[in-house]
């Protein structure tokens, strides 16, 4: 049980935030989950009404509220479209922490967050083991996408088409610590869990880009998860443990920017850590604020800080369509930069899909808990991608890449799924 005073403080904050909801219902027009279910409890307004019930009448049926609160992608579409500026995403994150503190963390999540992710050595070793033996349990299905499916019946994996764990994680490069080159800039590289263990090609592309542009790199291998998965499950303790570990690693701040190739991780530094900082000391909060100022998405860094020239597509260029990840566009406002970065690749011609910023339906653990709804949302994204006739789809978020790969692989599509930085790196010598 988390500190009671801390929870009461969060509860009061919640009350102040939810009172701003006009109940106009405009969130219905943008909520991907509501579009599938049509149920009011699945949209921000319905959830806020439940939380009002929670904070005003105290907890009568917290389990039911939790169940409905969990049915949210945390995509932030509702907050972005809210006429009265209700910060629904902030509200839901706090509410999940309060309810989990009250009800306790489920044994499975406790094992994952407190037994594994907050113990980096064990976490890394387990996944290294998984990488070695994954071939025994999976069968390749799509060479363009690089997906496989499980040979065994597994309730956790279901029918998913998965991407493989990398043979060697990005951290296998060891800590990198180089001085600024021609650019005069030095950046910290926070690669995030999925890039470290699955999309190492994305991490390698980031390193290639930084080196090409003469940017000094600080990539410590003792960095850990940004804490968002723990927080999304309401596990404040694991979240705070992880943030503290990262503060130790990046606390000196001897770099100009801290970059990530993941919209969610950047959003964590920039927005979520400062939002959920009341459990930290004053000096820790100052470090959080410093990192928030320096946090930047890799696409924004390339486009806004390094600067790239637009290249005209060459004859026979492949077509690329762009998915705008929720945390990248709606939380950080990064979308034009992705197009600028891709525009530098002469072998790519951009073609916009309908609803490029509509959520792909992944939502981290939402995909595990509500795979059926997640799949319905994901299939619409897949249809939008296919309708463009593109050869490649680019997405600046590894979680979106996993979801889109699953959807397209299951449909038998032969469209590659790439991170924009990979496609940009291809243009560099």
């Amino acid at each position, binding site marked *: 049980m988390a500190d009671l005073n801390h929870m009461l403080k969060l509860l009061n904050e919640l009350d102040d935030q939810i009172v701003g909801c006009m109940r106009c*219902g405009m969130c219905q*027009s943008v909520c991907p989950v509501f579009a599938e279910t049509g149920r009011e409890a699945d949209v921000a307004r319905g959830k806020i009404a439940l939380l009002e019930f929670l904070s005003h009448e105290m907890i009568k049926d917290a389990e039911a509220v939790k169940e409905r609160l969990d049915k949210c992608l945390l995509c932030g579409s509702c907050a972005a479209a809210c006429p*009265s500026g209700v910060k629904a995403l902030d509200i839901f994150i706090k509410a999940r922490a309060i309810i989990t503190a009250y009800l306790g963390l489920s044994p499975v999540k406790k094992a994952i967050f407190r037994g594994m992710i907050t113990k980096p050595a064990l976490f890394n070793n387990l996944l290294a083991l998984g990488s070695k033996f994954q071939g025994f349990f999976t069968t390749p299905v799509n060479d363009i996408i690089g997906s496989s499916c499980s040979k065994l019946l597994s309730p956790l994996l279901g029918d998913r088409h998965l991407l493989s764990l990398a043979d060697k994680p990005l951290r296998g490069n060891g800590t990198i610590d180089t001085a600024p080159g021609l650019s005069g800039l030095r950046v910290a590289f926070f690669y995030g869990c999925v890039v470290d263990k699955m999309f190492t090609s994305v991490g390698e592309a980031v390193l290639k880009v930084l080196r090409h542009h003469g940017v000094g790199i600080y990539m410590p291998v003792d960095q850990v998860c940004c804490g968002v998965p723990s927080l999304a499950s309401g596990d404040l303790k694991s979240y705070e443990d992880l943030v503290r570990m990262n503060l130790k690693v990046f606390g000196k701040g001897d770099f100009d920017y801290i970059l990530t190739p993941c919209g969610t991780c950047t959003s964590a530094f920039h927005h979520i850590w400062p939002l959920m900082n009341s459990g930290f000391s004053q000096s820790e909060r100052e470090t959080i604020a410093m990192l928030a100022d320096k946090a930047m998405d890799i696409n924004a860094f390339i486009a806004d800080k390094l600067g790239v020239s637009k290249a005209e597509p060459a004859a026979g260029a492949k077509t690329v369509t762009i998915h705008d990840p929720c945390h990248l566009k709606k939380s950080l406002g990064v979308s034009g930069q992705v197009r600028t970065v891709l525009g530098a690749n002469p072998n790519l011609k951009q073609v916009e899909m309908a609803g490029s910023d509509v959520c792909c339906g992944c939502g981290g653990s939402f995909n595990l808990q509500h795979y059926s709804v997640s799949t319905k949302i994901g299939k619409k994204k897949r249809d939008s991608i296919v309708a463009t006739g593109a050869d490649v789809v680019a997405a600046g978020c590894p979680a979106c890449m996993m979801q889109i790969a699953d959807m397209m692989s299951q449909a038998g599509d032969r469209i590659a799924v790439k991170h924009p930085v990979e496609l940009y790196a291809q243009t560099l010598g």
Partner: protein
Amino acid sequence: MVSQSLKQAFVGIVGAENVMDAEADKHSYSYDAAVLDPVLPALVVRPSEMDQVGRIVKLCNDNGLPLTVRGAGSNLSGGTIPSKGGIVLLSNALNKILEVNEEDMYAVVQTGAITAKFAAAVAAKGLFYPPDPGSQAVSTLGGNVAENAGGLRGLKYGVTKDYVMGVNFFDVEGNYCKSGSKTVKCVTGLNIPQLMVGSEGTLAVMSEFILKLVPPPQAAKSMMAIFPDIMTASRTVSAIIAAKVVPCTLEFMDNFTIGAVEGFAKVGLPTDAGSLLLIEVDGHPAQVAEEAEKVEAICKANGCTRIQVAKDAVERNKVWEARRAALSSLARLRPTTVLEDATVPRSKIPAMMQALDKIAKEYKLTIGTFGHAGDGNLHPTILCDRRDKEEFHRVEKGVDAIFEAALGLDGTLSGEHGIGLAKSRWMEKETNRASVLFSKRIKAAVDPKNVLNPGKILGE
């Protein structure tokens, strides 16, 4: 409470997954966009086939269970609050566009279709459905018809009632009834479709509509005119109409709203301006050019200090950006936003604005006013914090005073938001006792057990 056996009967009609009675679910169907206390239903059902609707209505009537139909729950007068508990019937799965007829210019559509999606589907076939309530991105056509929703284009194109050619519905005994026609002219029998419009679900459960479509305007021109005070702007509104120009949109914003919009959206409005008008004329390109010039001249002649005529689509969008930001900008200033729609004859707008100023001072309220000046439909918006009981008591008094003022100026309780729960006690004051009794007799005749959305419009 609904008994287990009765619940099972609903499950038998729509399946267990479409029946909700958990406290947590009921909470999310206890309100709409009106600032009123929530009331929990006993059960929520979500039919996806029309025949299920008739069976649900019959079951409710047989058991004397109150029945409230809910589309998007976006209405602003409490029409979808299940004030007597009972059953909430969700209409949002009944959302098919059944026909868009280009030759005869009508559409047949189910009650749960979303307004903006319907308008877009119609536009894709080169036709135009003009009603555009502010909630059109989520509101359902069923809700629009039930509340007789309006919108920004009301001045030239009218409101929902002007587009309803036919309504099919289930009576309280669950019988499927058809009314109206696909023909332009239809004078067969009682005008049942128009009786259904604005009835807020108190007479029947509406299922499908035949809606009139019109050709889209070929061209449009927008402008923003800044005025030193409310009086000059109000005079200009009357002068434009007197010159026989009927813009499709003629919107108004007071000084407080201008300040709020500029503070939030930063669209380049002069915060020292007393008020502004946002005007759009549409139609044939030649007519649009002539009318735009005429409007510009009238604005200048009536004390307009600056006028910005949009040269292209980008500039036109900028004009409407200011209007779109009005409610958002006001809503962000205080926790609670009470949006009213007291409406007066156009010529009485100055008097109404003076009354609003007096009410704000008397009850110490913050009121920003914007709205559809062309049709006299103002939206005085009271900003407050509902948790402050003393302040909210003053708000309630202020709202009463607003209705009183509107009626005193030959106005109406509602230009486009309906009556619902919020204004039912004022009905006699706007009409008269005999008229309310007449309406009650109609209600009693078609719904003798008072099952259909009880307590709405006509009160108890």
